[in-house]
């Protein structure tokens, strides 16, 4: 029996699906080389969807629909809102780049992005193993195609192939783990699984066996060590606009399914998965920061930076359950959520600048391509250094508060082991600071190799100014977003 309330929970998804299909058809009639009509329609769709999610989230209410298959809760709604905005910003930054490289001969960039976003929505609102998996596949299949969008370009095709093979393997892991859990608990519904695991009646060994596969699959999707191999290759090989599409918005979805599966489904197994996350996180911080130091390709360096940042996000998920009490959970998970939001915000602007510097026949992806940017364009150099200092965690920029909130989640547990972990994390971020600083050095201290000034279309300029201003503003007044994340997590976990 499907009631009216069920439909309310998925209105944004329905609109997104309908518009993606409509845009795909209408695009057949568009002849402009920059696909202005398609672009505008996509932007409008994204704005509407983001607005709806914000309204849903603001109400602070939780609805279950379709017999508990989907859930609409504040955390999910905010994440979906942010993901829509992130996709929107990605498309704004990426359109000039894509059009110069013949990626706009068809409207696939827009439709595939919308379908990828739909996949994220389904992942975020899935309350059921199968549905979460379905969303994940929709997202990744769209992403594979996006990476291969420059089909005449060898490195892009190679990256797409790698991404596809490893991604399929990861999906296999996840599915295998989920089927184990289904076998042990007899249910696909997250709430039922939670009850079954919590009752203590289920064979612990089978559960942990399944859990290992689930965590491995999630680690693949997050791109954390030792499941990170695809990240640098795909980041480097994919057209930069698509790199941003993969490195930006999907992190929200990945974060959401980690919370859905591990916390809402398997919190009683926290003691087991926290240890697994601990190993993943420590390795990611170590490898991401150390290997990042020796990179000369900017996109590859940012890939390693992503690996270490994801390590930090996991760090925030670790101190959720301490000594069997879930009291610190809300604090820990909301700090991780805050971290993800800040991370994506910073990544968007960083890649935005790279996209802007790339011209026809010139990719601007070596670090040395940024040489003397300050003399060519002080504004974009400033935007880029704001992003880099933020990622390095230097106050007063948003990235510092992200690190602060994760570190306080660790230290306030009062456990010596967690405090040591915090010390380890800050030492690693010191190493990371070196390679971020190196890019700043290239932009500010080196002489430019070319005298061309940087020009950008008005929409890119406006969005980038807002983006950079937000990073600065969050640096001065991070309280609002922190409270938003905390409230979203508390309301979601409380229900």
């Amino acid at each position, binding site marked *: 029996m499907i009631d009216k309330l069920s439909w309310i929970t998925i209105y944004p998804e329905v609109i997104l699906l309908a518009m993606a299909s409509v845009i795909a058809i209408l695009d057949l009639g568009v002849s402009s080389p920059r696909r202005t009509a398609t672009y505008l329609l996509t932007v409008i769709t994204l704005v509407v969807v983001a607005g709806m999610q914000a309204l849903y989230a603001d109400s602070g209410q939780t609805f279950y629909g379709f017999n508990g298959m989907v859930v609409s809760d504040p955390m999910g709604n905010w994440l979906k809102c942010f993901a829509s905005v992130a996709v929107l910003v990605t498309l704004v930054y990426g359109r000039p780049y894509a059009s110069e490289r013949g990626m706009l001969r068809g409207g696939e960039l827009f439709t595939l992005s919308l379908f990828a976003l739909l996949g994220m929505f389904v992942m975020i609102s899935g309350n059921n193993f199968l549905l979460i998996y379905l969303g994940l596949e929709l997202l990744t299949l769209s992403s594979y195609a996006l990476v291969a969008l420059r089909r005449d370009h060898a490195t892009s095709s190679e990256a797409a192939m790698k991404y596809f093979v490893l991604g399929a393997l990861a999906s296999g892991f996840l599915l295998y783990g989920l089927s184990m859990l289904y076998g042990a608990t007899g249910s696909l519904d997250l709430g039922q699984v939670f009850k079954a695991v919590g009752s203590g009646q289920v064979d612990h060994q089978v559960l942990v066996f399944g859990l290992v596969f689930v965590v491995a699959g999630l680690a693949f999707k997050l791109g954390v060590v030792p499941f990170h191999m695809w990240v640098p290759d795909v980041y480097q090989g994919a057209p930069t606009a698509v790199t941003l599409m993969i490195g930006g918005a999907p992190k929200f979805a990945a974060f959401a399914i980690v919370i859905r599966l591990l916390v809402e489904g398997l919190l009683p197994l926290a003691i087991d998965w926290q240890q697994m996350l601990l190993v993943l996180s420590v390795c990611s911080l170590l490898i991401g920061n150390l290997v990042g130091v020796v990179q000369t390709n900017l996109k590859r360096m940012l890939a390693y930076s992503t690996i270490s940042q994801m390590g930090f996000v996991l760090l925030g998920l670790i101190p959720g359950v301490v000594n069997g009490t879930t009291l610190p959970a809300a604090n820990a998970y909301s700090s991780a959520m805050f971290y993800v939001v800040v991370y994506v915000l910073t990544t968007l602007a960083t890649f935005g600048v790279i996209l802007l510097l790339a011209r026809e026949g010139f990719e601007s992806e070596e670090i040395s391509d940024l040489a003397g940017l*300050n003399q060519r364009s*002080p504004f974009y150099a400033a935007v880029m250094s704001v992003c880099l200092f933020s990622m390095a965690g230097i106050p007063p920029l948003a990235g510092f508060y992200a690190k602060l909130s994760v*570190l*306080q989640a660790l*230290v306030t547990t009062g456990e010596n082991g967690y405090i040591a972990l915090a010390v380890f994390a800050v030492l690693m971020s*010191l190493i990371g600071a070196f390679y971020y600083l190196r890019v700043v*050095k290239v932009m500010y201290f080196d002489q430019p190799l070319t005298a061309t000034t940087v020009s950008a279309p008005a929409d890119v300029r406006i969005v980038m100014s807002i983006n950079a201003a937000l990073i600065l503003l969050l640096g001065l007044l991070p309280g609002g977003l*922190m409270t938003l994340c905390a409230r979203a997590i508390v309301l979601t976990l409380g229900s």
Partner: protein
Amino acid sequence: MGLLSLAIWTPIVFGVVLLALGRDEHAKVVRWIALIGAVCGLLVTWPLYTGFEIGTSAMQFVENVSWIERFNIHYHLGLDGISFWFVPLTAFITVIVVIAGWEVITERVNQYMGAFLILSGLMIGVFSALDGMLFYVFFEATLIPMYLIIGIWGGPNKIYAAFKFFLYTLLGSLLTLVALIYLYAASGGSFDIQTWHKLPLGSTAQTLLFFAFFAAFAVKVPMWPVHTWLPDVHVEAPTGGSAVLAAIMLKLGAYGFLRFSMPIAPDASREWAWLIIGLSLTAVIYVGLVAMVQKDMKKLVAYSSVAHMGFVTLGFFIFNDLGVAGGLVQMIAHGFVSGAMFLSIGVLYDRVHSREIASYGGVVNTMPKFAAFALLFSMANCGLPGTAGFVGEWMVILGAVQSNFWLGLLAASALIFGAAYTLWMFKRVYLGPVTNDHVRELTDINAREFLIMTLLAIAVLAMGLYPKPFTDVMNASVTDLLQHVAASKLN
């Protein structure tokens, strides 16, 4: 908006405006705006001076607004006798630096001036923050403008210096960040420094906190043996950068000892005082000897800074009124004197483009006015009575003798080294016959440079002849701090 906020944000707002002004076509306008900004920044500290109430150790000009509710972080500002003088000092040095860079800096003038103004606001923020996290934010944020100042306008090896400066200091402060969060957890969710002062802590916790703070502040001061970044950075930094670094940034570290280490971990401070005293004496004596053999003027003054800051930390950790107040006076005096020394070197460097002592000789013949100023500042650097350099060192030595005669003797003997390397440098650079053409072609200081030198000379003499306004402000707070440190916090 309170007076302290005004002192912090006036220069920052001017700095941001300058950054937005863009290219070098408007260099002239940019310089004037920068000067107006710096002077306004100094003027707004005047009401602080007139309004400061002497004889109380309570915080004054307090502003307290909730900033980040989720972690109970407050925008909490206030000044007491310990922090007060650093606010006008910072604003004053900024004015000097802006004037000093007037003609020298011709490239990207707006960014240069903007960076110094923003830096000035941030440093005032460090001295007036009463919330641990606010302190940390200001403390760390100062790294960004300084990194850019060194890297963009520095000497030939500027990139190495900029990285060394940034990473060295970041290493220390990251451990402090963990310590601050630990205190937040231990105090039940407060970042308020004054709450932390009253927080009882066990002996292990105190020791760990003490060393976490030590990591940040010792690097910043810098104390021997973590001082090695300072000579490299000073040599490569532009004149203004060196002046601000020596005059104010080093004080951030020493101030941290007084605001954090000693009152928060008093038992550990007393337990480990021998270590700090040992390191300070090494700095005073050994680094003094190292300074003597330097061939590079900037390096020599940099090592002399390490030695002088050694007096400061020595004074703090002998735990008596004279020592702590002496250390504070020495910090302010060193602000004027080291700033003046670096600016003097800058005057020569702008003309000859060499920092080697050997490139000079007989400068007094061609630049008599300048040599007179340089002599005054050199004398102040030696600690000649009647100059600013004397008061602080004298008080520290008296304090040291009070606590232990031999300690005082060692510290006092170090004064001889100070005199030796400063005067020897003065002799080699300024006195004697003119040895080369560079020196023969030198022109004496112009009106702008005369103005800077005069301002600094007035400050150095005024503080040397009449230090009462400085010590009066400090007394109550120092006594209170020492009483606080004397009481055990162990539970």
